[in-house]
C-alpha cells in the first residue's frame, strides 16, 4: 500500500510531543488589550431614517427661523448708493489725460432722502472693476515698512524712484490709494450744512494700533526723511491728515483701509461715519443732500465705476438679503426633504409588513 506524494519527501514521525511551542509561547503571544484586538468600546451610530428624520426637521426649523429673522432685520437697513463716476463728465474726461494729474477737479452730486436714515450712518466709497485681488497687485506691498521698519522689498514695480529714493509707502497698493475726498452737505433752507463725520475708528483696531506704525522720530516729516511719496500721490504720506497727528503717516485710516485688499473686483471701503451731533443725532434726516467731491481717482481708464454709499448696519451686517434668503431656502429644502423621507419610510414599511405577513 503506497501513496504518492508530490514535491518534497515528507517525513512522518508519530507520535511527536510538541514541547517547542510551549516554551516559546509566552513571548509570542499577543497582548490581549482591547486596542490591539480592535475591541475598544465604541459608539456605533448608524445613519438610519429614524435618527436622521428629526435632524432634518430640526435643521429645517432652525434655518427657517434664522432666515426669517435675517430677512426682517436686513429689511430695516437703509442703503443709498450713488454712482458718481459719470456724474461730472468733465472730471472723468479730465482724469483720462494723465498730464492733468495734479490739477484739481471738483464735482457735486445732489440727491434727496425721502425718509430719515436713523441710527449710525456709514459712508462708503465703492469701486467696480478694480482688481484689487490681482496677484501682482496683492503682493506689491511691504508690511515691514508699514510697521515702521526701514525695509521696502516686495514692492515691485513701485519700490523706489530711478534715483534710488525709496517710496513711502511703497508698492502698487499704496500707490493707487483712493484719493477722492467726499464731503456731505445737508441742504436746509438753501443753506448747506456740512454733515459732521468721523475720520477715525473706521479701521480694525489691531491694524490701527499694531499692524501699522510710523517710523520712530521726533516728528513725522523727519521720520519720513529720505523717502518720497508714491508717484500717483499728490502729497507725501506725512501730510495725509494734517489736522490729526494720530491719523497721519502710516496710521492714517484711509491708507489702512485701502491696504486691506478686497476679495473681489467690486468692493466698498468704509470712508467716514456720520458723527451723531446736533440735527444728525438720530442719523440723517430726510431732505436734500449734496456730495462735494474732489474727483481725483480715475476709473474710466479701466472701465470702472465709483460709488458713494450711505448705509446703516444691523447685527446681521448690511443690506445683503443673501444670507436670509439662503437660510429660508435651505430650511425649506431640509423640511421638504424630511417629509419626502418620511413618506418613503412609511411606504416601505407598509410594504415590508405586507411581505412579512
Amino acid at each position, binding site marked *: 500500500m503506497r501513496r504518492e506524494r508530490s514535491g518534497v519527501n515528507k517525513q512522518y514521525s508519530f507520535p511527536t510531543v510538541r514541547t517547542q511551542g510551549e516554551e516559546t509561547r509566552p513571548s509570542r503571544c499577543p497582548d490581549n488589550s482591547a486596542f490591539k484586538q480592535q*475591541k475598544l468600546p465604541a459608539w456605533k451610530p448608524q445613519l438610519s431614517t429614524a435618527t436622521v428624520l428629526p435632524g432634518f426637521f430640526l435643521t429645517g426649523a432652525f434655518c427657517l427661523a434664522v432666515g426669517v429673522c435675517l430677512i426682517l432685520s436686513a429689511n430695516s437697513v437703509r442703503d443709498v448708493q450713488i454712482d458718481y463716476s459719470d456724474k461730472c463728465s468733465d472730471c472723468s474726461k479730465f482724469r483720462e489725460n494723465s498730464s492733468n494729474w495734479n490739477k484739481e477737479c471738483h464735482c457735486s452730486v445732489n440727491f434727496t432722502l425721502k425718509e430719515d436714515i436713523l441710527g449710525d450712518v456709514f459712508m462708503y466709497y465703492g469701486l467696480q472693476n478694480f482688481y484689487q485681488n490681482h496677484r501682482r497687485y496683492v503682493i506689491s506691498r511691504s508690511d515691514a515698512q508699514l510697521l515702521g521698519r526701514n525695509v521696502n522689498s516686495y514692492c515691485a514695480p513701485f519700490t523706489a524712484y530711478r534715483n534710488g529714493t525709496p517710496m513711502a509707502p511703497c508698492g502698487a497698493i499704496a500707490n493707487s490709494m483712493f484719493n477722492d475726498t467726499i464731503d456731505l452737505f445737508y441742504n436746509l433752507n438753501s443753506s448747506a450744512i456740512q454733515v459732521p463725520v468721523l475720520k477715525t475708528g473706521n479701521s480694525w483696531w489691531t491694524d490701527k494700533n499694531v499692524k501699522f506704525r510710523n517710523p520712530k522720530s521726533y516728528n513725522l516729516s523727519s521720520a519720513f526723511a529720505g523717502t518720497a511719496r508714491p508717484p500717483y500721490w499728490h502729497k507725501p504720506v506725512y501730510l495725509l491728515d494734517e489736522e490729526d497727528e494720530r491719523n497721519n503717516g502710516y496710521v492714517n485710516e484711509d491708507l489702512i483701509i485701502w491696504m486691506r485688499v478686497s*476679495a473681489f473686483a467690486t468692493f466698498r471701503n468704509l470712508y467716514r461715519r456720520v458723527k451723531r451731533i446736533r440735527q444728525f443725532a438720530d442719523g440723517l434726516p430726510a431732505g436734500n443732500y449734496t456730495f462735494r467731491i474732489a474727483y481725483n481717482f480715475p476709473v474710466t481708464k479701466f472701465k470702472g465705476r465709483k460709488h458713494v454709499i450711505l448705509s446703516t448696519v444691523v447685527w446681521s451686517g448690511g443690506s*445683503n438679503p443673501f444670507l436670509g434668503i439662503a437660510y429660508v431656502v435651505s430650511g425649506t429644502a*431640509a423640511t421638504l426633504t424630511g417629509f419626502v423621507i418620511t413618506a418613503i419610510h412609511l411606504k416601505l414599511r407598509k410594504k415590508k409588513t405586507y411581505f412579512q405577513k
Partner: protein
Amino acid sequence: MLMEIFSCLFFFFFRSMNVFLIVYLCILISKALINTVLKYVWQSEPFRDEPWYNQKTEPERKRNLFLRAFTDFLAFMVLFNYIIPVSMYVTVEMQKFLGSYFLTWDEEMFDEDTGEGPLVNTSDLNEELGQIEYVFTDKTGTLTENNMEFVECCIEGHVYVPHVICNGQILHDCTGIDMIDSSPGGSGKEREDLFFRALCLCHTVQVKDDDSVDGLKKNQLSRRSCIYISSSPDEVALVEGIQRLGYTYLRLKDNFMEILNRENNIEKFELLEVLSFDSVRRRMSVIVRSSTGDIFLFCKGADSSIFPRVKEGKIDQIRSRVERNAVEGLRTLCVAYKKLTAEEYSNAQKLLQNAKLALQDREKKLAEVYEKIERDFILLGATAVEDRLQEKAADTIEALQKAGIKVWVLTGDKMETAAATCYACKLFRRNTQILELTTKKIEEQSLHDVLFDLSKTVLRHNGSLTRDTFSGLSTDMQDYGLIIDGAALSLIMKPRQDGSSGNYRELFLEICRNCSAVLCCRMAPLQKAQIVKLIKLSKEHPITLAIGDGANDVSMILEAHVGIGIIGKEGRQAARNSDYAIPKFKHLKKMLLVHGHFYYVRISELVQYFFYKNVCFIFPQFLYQFFCGFSQQTLYDTAYLTLYNISFTSLPILLYGLMEQHVSADTLKREPSLYRDVAKNALLRWRAFIYWTFLGVFDAVVFFFGAYFLFDNTIVTSNGQMFGNWTFGTLVFTVLVFTVTLKLALDTHYWTWINHFMIWGSLVFYIVFSLLWGGIIWPFLNYQRMYYVFMQMLSSGPAWLGIILLITVSLLPDVLKKVLCRQLWPTATERIQNASRHCREHISEFTPLACLKSPRYRSSDCSNSPARRSNSHSKKMMFTHWRGIDYSVLPSVFGYSNKHCRSSAGYRYSGSGLETSV
C-alpha cells in the same frame, strides 16, 4: 512635483487608485490649461492687462509671450497641485504599515498549540485580502493536519472505536474498547483476533526506536517511544490505531514479525511473502506463518478490490458501513484473510518465484499471479482512517464559498484521496455535480470532445438560470465541481500546432469559471504555479490567493497576488516566501472575511476621501481665478495651504483607516456573504469615484459661492467695517475644514475615544492654530496678512451664520443620499447594521430572526443558522440529516439544507471516489 507623481504612478500597485490619479492629473492639467487660455483671453484688452494701478515690472514686460504663457501654465499647476494628493501616499503607506499590526496582534489568529501567530511579511497587500476571488489551496498540511488517524474498525458488522481519539497521539489508557454493538459471539471473537492480527501484520511499516541505546526495552515498557515509519501515513495510522486497541506491532526481526497482544504476550509470525501494493490492484497482501504453524494470507485493500474476491463473511453489513464511512470522507480499507494449506502455499510460492524471476513482462506476470493467489477471501472487516482535516477547515471553506470566493484545491495527491478530502471539507457537496477532466477520460475521448462536452453541460445549465450574485446564496443553481489532473492540464496548456493555441485554454477557463469548486490533483509544484498564472491572467484579472505549507507550494505562493504560508510542520519555507503567514488554515477565514474586509473598506474610504477633500480644497481656488483676473492669486494663506493636508485633515482619516469597523468583526465572521458587498473592488468603482468627486465639487461650489454672495459688495460685520480677501479665504477655509472633517465623522461607524479625540481634536487644533497664527506679528515673515483676520471673522455675526449655513448645506445632500440609499437600495452590510440595531432596540419584543425585516436577507440569514448548527454537529449527525427522507416536512427555515437534498439526484460521486482511497 511631476517627477514625484510619475514615480508614484509607477511604483504604486493599487490599480484603481492609479487610474483615479491619472484622471486627476488630467483634471489638473486641463484646469491649468483652461486658466492659462482664459487668462490671455481676459488680458487681451489692455485696460485689464495692465491698468494704471497695477503695472508690470520691466523684466515682465520684456518677456516673450510664449515664455510668459508657459510660466503662467506652470504657476497654475503649482497652484492646483494639491488636487493630486501626494500626502495620500504617505497616509496610505502609514495606514498599511500600522494596520498590518492589527493582524499580527489578533489573538484569535494565534495558535496555542504551536505558539505561532500570524506574520506579515509585506503590508502592501492588506486591502487585497478583501478582494480575493480565487483561493488556491494545497491539500496536505494545509487543509488536513497531515496526520492520519485511525477512527474505527468494523469487524463483522460490529463497530469498534478506540477509546480516546487524540490527534495522533497515543495515550496510556488505550486498553478499553468501545463496543457499540453487543459483544460478538464465539466465532466473532476468533474473527476479531484475526482482524487485529491482520492489521498488525499486513503492512510495510518499519519501526524506528526513539532512543537507540535501550530502545527495545523501552519500547516494551512504554509504547510511546517508538516511531513507525512508512511511505504511507495511512499504514502508520492503522498500526497505531490497532495499538490503541491492544495489539502492538513491535518489529520485524529475522523475517519474524513480533506483535504484542492484548494479554501482553509477544506473538511471532514468520513473514513468508509480501504481495506489495500497486495502484491497479489497490490492495496488498502478506502471507505469514503463525507460531502454531498455520499459514495465513492477510489482505487489505480498497473495498472495490476486496469485495469481488470474498466468498464468505458479512459482506452486506460491512459494505454498508464502508459506504457510510466513505460518505463521511474517511479513507476506508477492507480486510480479508484466507487460510492456506501448506500445499496451497507452496504452489503460490512457486508461482511467485517464477513470476519474479521472469525476464519478460515481469510486471504482467506478477499481476497474474497475484490475481490467482488473492481470491476466495473470508471478509473480516473494514477500517476507517481519517486524514484529519484541520480544525474548522470545512467551516472555513464553506465560509469562503459563501463569501463568493472560488476555492481550488491543488494537490500532488491522487484523485480519489483528494476527492475524499474535498468532500470532507465541504468543497464538494452532496449535490455538487462532478465533472472529470482526467487522463483516463481523455484516453477514452479526445481532449477536444471532452472539453466541449463539459462546457456544454456547464453552459446549458447556466444559460437557463440567471445568476443572483448578491443574494449570498448560489444554491439555487446546480453546483459544479471540476476535477482535473496534471496530465490533462499539461495537455490543455500545451500550445497546439495549428496555431489556435489559446482555444483550449479559453474553453477550460470558461468551464472553470462556472464551477464552484475545482480540484486539481497530481500537480507538480510548477504546475500549481501555472494554474495560478492561468487564472490570474484570464480576462477578468481576478485577485488570487495561494495558500500552502510546504516547499512545493512556494512557486504557487509566489505566483499568486497574495501568497499565504502556513507555519507548518514542514519547515518555514512557505511561510518565509509568503506575504502573510498564518498558523492554521482556519485562520484564513478571519484573515479574509474580517481583516481583509476591514482593510478594504478602510483603504477605499481613505483613498476616496483624500480625493474628495482635495477637490473641496482646490476647486474654490480654481473658481477664485475667475474673479481675480486669472492671476494665480491664492485663496488661502500659505500656512493653510501647507497645513491642510498635513495637520488639519490628515489624522482623522488616518485613524479612520486604522480603526473603522462598519459592522462588527463578529458579524463579518458570522455572515461570510458580506464579503460579496466589497467584491470586485465595489467601493472603488467609477460610480463611487464619480460620486465622491461630484460631492467634492458640489461642496466646493457651495463654499465658494456661498461665501461669495455673503461678501458680495456688502457689509459683513455689525460695526460697518469691511473684510478683505484673506478674510474671505479664511472663511472658505474654515467652512472647508469643518465640512471635510464632519463628513468623515458622518462616515465613521465606530467611535472610540481615539476617534473623538482625533476628529474634535483636529478641529480644535485648527481653531487654536488660526488664533495663534493671526494673533502675533510674526517677526520672520515679510507679510502680516493674516494678522487678526481669523479673530475679526469670528467677531462678526454674519460670518458665523454664514459658516453654519454653508457647513449644513454641504453636508445635507450626502446625508440625504446615504439615508435614501439605505432605505431604497440597502446593501447586505447595511441590512445587517439595521437588523442588529433593530434587535438591540426591540430585544424584548422580537426574536432575533424575526427582526430581520427584509425578506431577502431573512431567507439567507435564517438558512445560515441551521447550516452553522449542523457544522457543529458530529458528522454522523450530518449524515442522518442528509439521508433522511422527511426533509419536506421540515419548516421552511431549513431551506438551506433543503436545497442541498433536492438535487441530490445528481451524480453521486462519493461512492466510487472513496472506495479507492487506498
